[in-house]
């Protein structure tokens, strides 16, 4: 039972981080109809920047600057590439983002080399006990911060002018433009928000129990893709649920791997994709993907 609760708590905390990444992914898709594969390298960029800047700037300032750098990179990708390719087929845009991702990733790997950079989180590698259940301090803080950010995001999405403009242009871009909504601005803002979310996720992904910044952080970030897809690519609520589902599935698969040995070692790494495929087989547009609501 204790093991179950512990895996549950760890799954939720991991899922909250995935949800941050997946939210950005979904927001970009809604605002600019781009399936953006740049998220893995953006995340690594955030982690790398925070780790490198921690020494000269101190931890907290490094976090602020690192997150800003990630957001700025997203801004540049939108302005210099995506915005100029408006009207290009969705598939071409997706491939373009894969290209950008590989370029950025290659450069980051070259810079990181064979080191494992450490982010000196002030909360260190210790863990907290809640009753019998243990969780790393880093993951606990991650869950709280992600929870606050996600709540803020949903409030803004529901009530702010940006949220209304965003939802209107996601539903019908041409009409939104006819109403005076600047599609370019909606799109670039979505990329910046996604960049910020990825930067924050990066901060926590490279802390305990994960050992520092290394290119493997990239493959961890990739698991947010199935989270976004299984939730429904155009559903922000779906990104949250998808993130949690993937986090839980991964946590349980890793925790019970002795019982799951017949499936082979490392099952935890592939389980996000298996969950995604299973969900899509039953709901092709994801759990909360759009089924048009119209009266005929």
């Amino acid at each position, binding site marked *: 039972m204790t093991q179950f609760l512990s895996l549950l708590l760890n799954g939720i905390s991991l899922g909250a981080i995935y949800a941050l990444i997946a939210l950005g992914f979904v927001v970009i898709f809604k605002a600019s109809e781009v399936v953006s594969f740049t998220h893995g390298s953006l995340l690594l960029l955030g982690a790398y920047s925070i780790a490198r800047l921690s020494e000269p700037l101190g931890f907290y300032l490094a976090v602020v600057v690192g997150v800003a750098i990630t957001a700025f990179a997203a801004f540049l990708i939108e302005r210099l590439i995506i915005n100029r390719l408006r*009207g290009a087929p969705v598939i071409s845009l997706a491939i373009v983002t894969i290209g950008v991702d590989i370029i950025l990733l290659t450069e980051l790997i070259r810079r990181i080399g064979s080191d494992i950079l450490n982010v000196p989180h002030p909360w260190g590698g210790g863990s907290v006990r809640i009753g019998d259940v243990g969780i790393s301090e880093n993951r606990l803080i991650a869950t709280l911060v992600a929870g606050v950010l996600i709540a803020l995001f949903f409030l803004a999405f529901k009530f702010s*002018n940006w949220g*209304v*403009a965003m*939802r*209107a242009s996601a*539903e*019908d871009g*041409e*009409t*939104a*433009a*006819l*109403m*005076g*909504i*600047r599609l370019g601005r909606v799109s670039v803002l979505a990329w910046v928000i996604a960049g910020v979310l990825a930067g924050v996720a990066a901060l926590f992904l490279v802390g305990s129990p994960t050992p520092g910044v290394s290119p493997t952080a990239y493959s961890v970030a990739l698991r947010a893709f199935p989270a976004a897809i299984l939730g429904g690519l155009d559903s922000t609520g779906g990104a949250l649920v998808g993130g949690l589902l993937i986090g839980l599935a991964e946590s349980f698969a890793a925790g019970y791997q002795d019982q799951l040995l017949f499936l082979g070692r490392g099952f935890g790494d592939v389980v996000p994709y298996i969950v995604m495929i299973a969900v899509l087989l039953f709901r092709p547009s994801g759990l909360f993907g759009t089924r*048009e*609501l*119209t*009266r005929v």
Partner: protein
Amino acid sequence: MLSIDDLHVTYGGAVQAVRGVSMAVPDGEVVAVLGSNGAGKSTLLRAISGTLRLHRGRIDSGSIRFGATDLAGRDPAQTVRMGLVQVPEGRRIFGRLTVEENLRAGGMASRDKAAKARAQDRVYDLFPVLRERSSQRGALLSGGEQQMLAIGRALMASPKLLLLDEPSLGLAPRIIGQIGQVIAEINRQGTSVLLVEQNATMALGVAHLAYVLDVGEVSLSGEARELARTDEVQRLYLGHDGHENDGGDGAPRRRAASGRTLSRWVQ
């Protein structure tokens, strides 16, 4: 207020949709543009609003001026900020947004909160049903209510000139009559209107001036009342037989659909 001079528009570099159209919307008036499918009516509105690019179309020559400003090359967000707002064909309301959010989306171009509050009051006064349904999703409204929402949404930007693309499309005759009254009321409140329609009865009923477009060219133009009496308009757009029905007020006689007669739109 709005003047179009010798406008030529092509799509994909090949298809000529508008060929040498000139027209004017005087300040404070309602101007109707009639024409059948493919006459170039929607293209004209796209050229004015700046959405041609989204349809791979472009202005080859000619000019569109709003007051002293040339509209060529402006994007839709800019034209809205200048006071030209379009109600697109087929209503195109945001079905997943509530009625109130739809109106909010319409007011997005302005930062003036007081003006937006006034505009919203005006919309709710014009269409009380929208106030009742303000928290419902747009997709759940009836066709007529959706058209009212589409018009209300455009009014949120407090336009100087309202462009309407076939507001009668797919609506019951009684509702079309209401839409006609609303257009007249909006105009009375000081907004000029460019009304593109296939429903000539309604359009000529509210318009001061009218143009008839035929395959991308203006084939007739003049005062709406005069135009309604001409043989050609009677025959093609009102479904009357012009010779027998010499401006009389008797019951309009229907003609069997033949050739270019738009009997479908006769009420």
